């Protein structure tokens, strides 16, 4: 490691605030992109699944009623 202490790593000869600001923003930007995509995908997938479940349910109910009618 170039720096001898953690303190020095944080201070970076006085340029620390700039460097850490830049890195922090970078991490933030990447994370936001990652999470936004993740969440939206989850949401879409569960919406799709829910649709299928509703469809299956309706199917079953109509089956039930026709069975009842038959009998």
């Amino acid at each position, binding site marked *: 490691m170039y720096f001898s202490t953690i303190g020095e790593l944080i201070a970076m000869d006085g340029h620390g605030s700039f460097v850490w600001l830049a890195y922090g923003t970078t991490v933030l930007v990447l994370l936001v992109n990652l999470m936004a995509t993740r969440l939206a995908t989850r949401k879409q997938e569960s919406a*799709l699944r829910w649709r299928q479940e509703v469809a299956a349910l309706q199917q079953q109910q109509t089956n039930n009623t026709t069975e009842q009618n038959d009998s």
Partner: protein
Amino acid sequence: MSGSVTASLKQLWHKLGSPRWFYQITRNWVRGFGVMAAVLLLVGCIWGLAFAPPDYQQGNSFRIMYVHVPAAMVSQSLYLGMGVAGFIGLVWRMKLADVAIAATLPLGISLTALALFSGSVWGRPTWGSWWEWDGRTVSTLVMLFLYLGIYALREAIAEADLRARAAALVSLVGTVNIPVIKYSVEWWNTLHQPASFTLTEKPAMPAEMWLPLLVMVLGFYCFAGHNVLSRMRLEILRREANTRWVAELFAAKSVPASITKES
């Protein structure tokens, strides 16, 4: 011989146009890119922040380079990618092209903004001001506008087909700006650093300085691959929600027991 090659190429092309095929084939790519991005970014960050030697002129502020340069490079590449997608979309009317444009926009915008932001943060200690009017800064800003413009354009047009065509056209035409950003440093000879990586010459920096940069650049590219592909897959799920293959993909494995009992 060549006939069969073109035939199979045509087949591949046809496949490429199919969202379903794309969705299935990219499942593993997304994972691969994700893992690689995580490793590379982690290694690169630690290396760049803690182990690389400081610049003899700029001191430690030069470490911003390891996020600034990859962000700038990837944001340009993404724009170029949108231009290519635009071309494909316009010429072959391929639906996937618009999916790609839509998926590239958010990341492109954020990385351009990041390049601008990290650049200004870097400029404060080195140039002494947050902002300078120089060729590269301005053309990057202009690229941000181009991105935002395409985004706004897509928001403004309600009809899907027209939206796709308009966005493709503007993306394609906008690629004119890429060489401007690329060569701005040479044309203006101003404050900003000239390219440090070129294909023809060896980098001027010592290896301990440019190796972490290389790692970070690769990491950013992998992240972009991961993010754009996942967004494309999401977009495909949205658009193809009513098709059979999506329905099958998300078929209810079983109706929840609670509901079955009631009925």
